[in-house]
């Protein structure tokens, strides 16, 4: 059961620069990244941020390139917020929460050109690799966004091509060949309650969050995707402070993958 925390109490702690669980405002919970957790997947990972747990798996498929990009493969990202992982999630087709999560993770990878799509092409116009990334929530204790993005990039790095025999994938024979990667983007979501910005919300903090900004950051510290969420507006100064914090904290997450 989630104990509904009074906003008043939370803000009193924020004013002192702390959170109800004793963390500083710019402090992640313990983040753990484990790869290869599902040997049947071409790539897989488990990310834990505190008690939040997310799995990501990569399956490779052969498909036809898009007509406007005949010499490129592509990625597909799906997210499932399982009823197993929270009393707030229901069975059924993906809701807007899962759709937004998947699309923000997708953009962080696609827009940073993490994967060299041209090198996924086998026969131009006919055959290319499709990298399918599935993200599954196992326990939602806040901050699924950052856990999902980190799990996705960890699974992509962990991915190995299977053999192709007679034009068909032989999933049982794995090669040592990795996906062609150019970049590793990391996403950090910064939240705002009252006048305070902070990262890695607990579930209670996430429920009280007024606005959030997810920032995807490249190795060089450039931005590659942004997504504002929440019911409250942000002013320009908030946005720059949130981006600076996200870029700074992305360095910590990057060390884990």
């Amino acid at each position, binding site marked *: 059961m989630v104990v509904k925390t009074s906003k008043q109490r939370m803000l009193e702690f924020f004013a002192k620069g702390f959170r109800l669980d004793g963390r500083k405002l710019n402090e992640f919970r313990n983040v753990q990244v484990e790869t290869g957790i599902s040997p049947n997947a071409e790539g897989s990972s488990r990310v834990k941020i505190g008690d939040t747990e997310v799995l990501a798996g990569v399956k490779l498929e052969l498909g036809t390139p898009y007509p406007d990009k005949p010499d490129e493969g592509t990625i597909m990202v799906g997210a499932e917020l399982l009823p197993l992982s929270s009393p707030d999630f229901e069975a059924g087709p993906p809701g807007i929460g899962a759709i937004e999560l998947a*699309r923000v993770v997708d*953009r962080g990878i696609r*827009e*940073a050109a993490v994967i060299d799509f041209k090198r996924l092409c086998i026969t131009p116009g006919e055959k290319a690799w499709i990298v399918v990334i599935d993200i599954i929530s196992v326990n939602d204790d806040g901050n699924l966004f950052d856990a999902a993005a980190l799990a996705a990039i960890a699974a992509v790095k962990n991915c190995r091509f299977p053999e192709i025999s007679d034009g068909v994938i032989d999933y049982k024979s794995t090669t040592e060949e990795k996906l062609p990667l150019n970049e590793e983007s990391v996403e950090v979501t910064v939240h705002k309650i009252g006048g305070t910005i902070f990262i890695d919300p607990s579930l209670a903090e996430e429920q009280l969050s007024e606005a959030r900004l997810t920032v995807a950051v490249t190795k060089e510290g*450039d931005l*590659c995707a*942004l997504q504002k969420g929440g019911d409250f*507006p942000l002013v*320009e100064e908030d946005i720059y402070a949130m981006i600076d914090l996200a*870029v700074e904290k992305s360095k910590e997450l990057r060390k884990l993958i």
Partner: protein
Amino acid sequence: MAFTRPDNRKVNDFRDIEAKAGIIKRADGSGYFRIGKTVAYAAVYGPRDLYPRFLQNPQKGILRCSYNMMPFSGSGERVRPGTNRRSREISHVTEKALLPVLDLTEFPNAVVDVFIELPQTDAGTRCAGICAASIALADAGIPMRDMVSAIAAGYIGGTALIDVSKEEEDYAGGMADIPIALLPRTGEITLLQMDGIMPKDQLKKAIMLAKEACKKIITVQQKALKEKYGRW
């Protein structure tokens, strides 16, 4: 070498815009917004009863937006009718972009439905939809503390600019697309998305350009309403 815009616009030039209020008579409020060759209609229905009941909020009314591209509206293949993940996300961020200006406390258990339809697109569709919806909400008489304007900023060939066209969006050298919605009077930002690689100092430039543009765009939105209600 600096990026030259295909239609020779300056970085702070947006395409010609046009706005109308009350174009759909059956609706409680409606708006039309065109920027270049991107056209958005918006119709507001409500506040009206919300079903199924479990969606109702006894504290205040809810806002429900639906963004849709007409099947023939895209520059390439036919757009398949019905929702997809893209349109559902845009509907969602559109709600978040408009909600901060609305006061729905007087309408418990009710819904304000906003339908945004695009018959013709040339990039910047979610922003055009938000501009049209803002006009439609005001036309419907929904209590609002301000109006929302929106513009798609971009970062192409090392340059921050506003009102990216489809041709610019497809620029081979890569680009970043930054849709922004804001309240021009206070500068509060209610929608901010970005895809594509850009240095963070250039984002400041893009937001500054968007703010300046929205100050002009809002006067066109307001003029549309004044034209309809001007006799008072």
